[in-house]
């Protein structure tokens, strides 16, 4: 499908052309391989790049500090150094999602997919293309148009031993499944006293697309964030899309994976070996000194485009893709705040009650003393997304606004 990325083009080009050794000091854009977990012996090592950085982008300084965390060890995979020597393969984001899903379905026969047009049609964004032919109609189930009921069916299947991946054709459609997601998905592990687990993954494309109209341009992360008992993650690159998909499927918790309609055709070189991305962690996109910019999903690319302009103007922004919308990775975020003392949140969510609003509250609560300026939050306007292209552009945060905001913050 045609997905012209307004403002994303530069980032896309950089991603697809960057060589596998991403530590070239000349490259200012994101190196997504930075934040995946590495297993060393019995302890679990998390590669969380919060290391200090100089303005000349010394690659050594950019390498992450290693932290030992008491978490369940993940499957072994390559360290940053070794991945640069392996060839890997190039995939578009929707193909990366599919690869992750297929690998998990191969690995565990209880993993199944349910959704509208996921089977014979291959998925409205082709994320499940070919899976029905490979795994059969029952494992990749084409459901009737009944979101509330098939989401509930997925929850019931999860409670009785399967590991379903429920696709909302558009995230907005999952509003119809809100009853099941809120009441059953989030709560039943607790109300049953821990007797039933619900290892379900609910995924789908959301966000503001290309003149899709108000109802197809919704950002449901703000509506779901209050539901106790669920985790929410948003993918933004092919690498983290595959990693998060796999981690979400393997997780015992219900996970909602937010994809973005405009990011499906991003291309990136992925490692050949098995890897996952930790569900609870944020991703350091670009270390910096002057200001912390927190973002997720498509806005990451608007931020990175603004970052180019900012660097030319002499600023050094630190860009973090928070990835985990619920819970927030307060460690990565906190370390960044402690370093830069200024926070800008750039999101596509609505202003009122959005992820940015919660993040602002969380940062203020936990890191108030470290702030030199009030937290700035750039969100979409509280407006039903208009159809007209110009109006649509003005509802969403654009790179120019980000540049202005940073300049204001750093005064």
């Amino acid at each position, binding site marked *: 499908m045609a997905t012209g990325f307004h403002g994303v083009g530069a980032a896309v080009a950089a991603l697809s052309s960057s060589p596998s050794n991403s530590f070239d000091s000349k490259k200012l854009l994101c190196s997504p391989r930075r934040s995946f977990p590495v297993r060393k012996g019995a302890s679990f090592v998390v590669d969380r790049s919060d290391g200090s950085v100089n303005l000349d982008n010394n690659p050594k300084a950019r390498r992450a500090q290693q932290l030992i965390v008491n978490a369940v060890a993940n499957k072994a995979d390559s360290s940053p150094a070794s991945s640069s020597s392996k060839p890997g393969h190039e995939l578009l984001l929707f193909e990366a999602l599919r690869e992750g899903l297929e690998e998990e379905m191969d690995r565990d026969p209880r993993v199944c997919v349910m959704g509208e047009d996921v089977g014979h049609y291959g998925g409205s964004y082709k994320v499940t293309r070919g899976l029905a032919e490979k795994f059969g109609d*029952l494992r990749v189930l084409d459901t009737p148009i009944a979101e509330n009921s098939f989401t*509930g069916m997925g929850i*019931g299947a999860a409670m009785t031993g399967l590991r379903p991946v429920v696709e909302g054709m558009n995230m907005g459609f999952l509003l119809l499944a809100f009853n099941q997601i809120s009441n059953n998905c989030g709560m039943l592990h607790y*109300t*049953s006293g*821990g007797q039933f687990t619900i290892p379900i993954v609910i995924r789908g494309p959301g966000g503001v697309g290309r003149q899709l109209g108000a109802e197809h341009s919704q950002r449901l992360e703000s509506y779901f964030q209050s539901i106790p008992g669920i*985790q929410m993650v948003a993918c933004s690159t092919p690498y983290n899309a595959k990693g998060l998909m796999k981690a979400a499927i393997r997780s015992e918790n219900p996970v909602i994976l937010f994809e973005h309609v405009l990011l499906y055709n991003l291309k990136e070189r992925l490692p050949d070996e098995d890897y996952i991305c930790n569900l609870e962690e944020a991703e350091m996109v670009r270390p910096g000194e002057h200001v912390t910019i927190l973002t997720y999903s498509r806005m990451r690319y608007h931020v990175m485009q603004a970052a180019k302009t900012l660097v030319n103007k002499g600023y050094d922004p630190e860009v973090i893709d928070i990835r985990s919308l619920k*819970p927030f990775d307060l*460690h990565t975020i906190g370390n960044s705040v402690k370093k830069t003392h200024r926070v800008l949140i750039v999101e596509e969510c609505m202003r009122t009650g959005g992820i940015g609003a919660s993040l602002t509250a969380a940062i203020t609560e936990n890191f108030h003393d470290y702030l030199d300026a009030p937290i700035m939050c750039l969100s979409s306007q509280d407006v039903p997304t208009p159809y007209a292209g110009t109006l649509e552009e003005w509802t969403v945060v654009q790179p120019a606004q980000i540049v202005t905001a940073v300049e204001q913050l750093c005064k």
Partner: protein
Amino acid sequence: MATAFSVPKFAAQPFNPISPTSQQKPLIFPTAASPFLGSTRKLLHLSSSSQLNLRRRSSGSVFAVSDIVKEKKSTSIPSLLITKEEGLELYEDMVLGRAFEDMCAQMYYRGKMFGFVHLYNGQEAISTGFIKLLKQQDSVVSTYRDHVHALSKGVPARAVMSELFGKTTGCCRGQGGSMHMFSSEHNLIGGFAFIGEGIPVATGAAFSSKYRREVLKEADCDHVTLAFFGDGTCNNGQFFECLNMAALWKLPIVFVVENNLWAIGMSHLRATSDPQIYKKGPAFGMPGVHVDGMDVLKVREVAKEAIARARRGEGPTLVECETYRFRGHSLADPDELRDPTEKAHYAARDPITALKKYLIENNLSGEAELKAIDKKIDELLEDAVEFADESPLPPRSQLLENVFADPKGFGIGPDGRYRCEDPKFTEGTAHV
């Protein structure tokens, strides 16, 4: 006793009282069309005829059990539907259900349990009739009126009572309460507070069973799921959506409608364009059966066939059981709206009295034996209450357990460690 029953005074439209011979009269109001047999009528051998009908007709069959009875009434010699052991099992289960609910009411008014408590008095025949035919691995999904479903499925009375008292020894550790009874051991998958919510979950459990058989190749997996819900739920979207999916994929599920004619204060007739719920089954391609839900033996016969159908892989059945709740919707309901004559009519059809009469009349048991069962149940319940009373309340440390199956879901704290490692989490004092 005449089969006629008096009209609820608050129905929107007046009815004709029904007797079996009045079938020829033009009937204006749909509900008057299905004659309901009183419990004092001799039970006739139904199993062969009902099997015949369910199989012979296409999946679009709609019929009332009473129609079949009328066909055979003059010809067959009454033969027994149950053995003595079965009869006593049914009796004991129904008495347990009744006595438990009565004890709940007592305990509620004594301040031992709070919130919304919905009692099942009068509907025991459905729970017993269906659930006693299930295996342990079969699943039951219920609504907020779930205490007796839990008991019939095998959850100990102690565990249910403790749960109601909010104690940590309850089946859900006190975290669910009256409306959320769960037991993974007995495959009781809820307990749901919103009506209709459990039906998709039941459909999912049935889907799992089919998946196991066909994808995971667990060849002997023939687990059946029963979904219980009421007449009010039958106007809800989730009900229809799941009827469609279950019939489409021939899921091993039985949809059991406990039509007690009232949804809190809303009469079924005032809420439903076509009150004959069983007719909605064939619209989706499954048989729709209507049965007298005050008669445990009739329910059992229908249940046997419906469950067997599901087990054979022939798909779902919609069973509408006409029943009545003797108490209000919940213990908070003053129950002023229902006509006392209607209540009296159904009280006279008490399923426990009916079964007792059947057992005695057919020499399956005697007064003394049944009284012994009553006594045994009373003692069981006293023990359950005592156990619940003496059980500890949940400690603070329990607050944050079970929110996530994997507590890493609480995220990473500012110090870099997972928040669930913070001792305040195990103490329950952390702020989430």
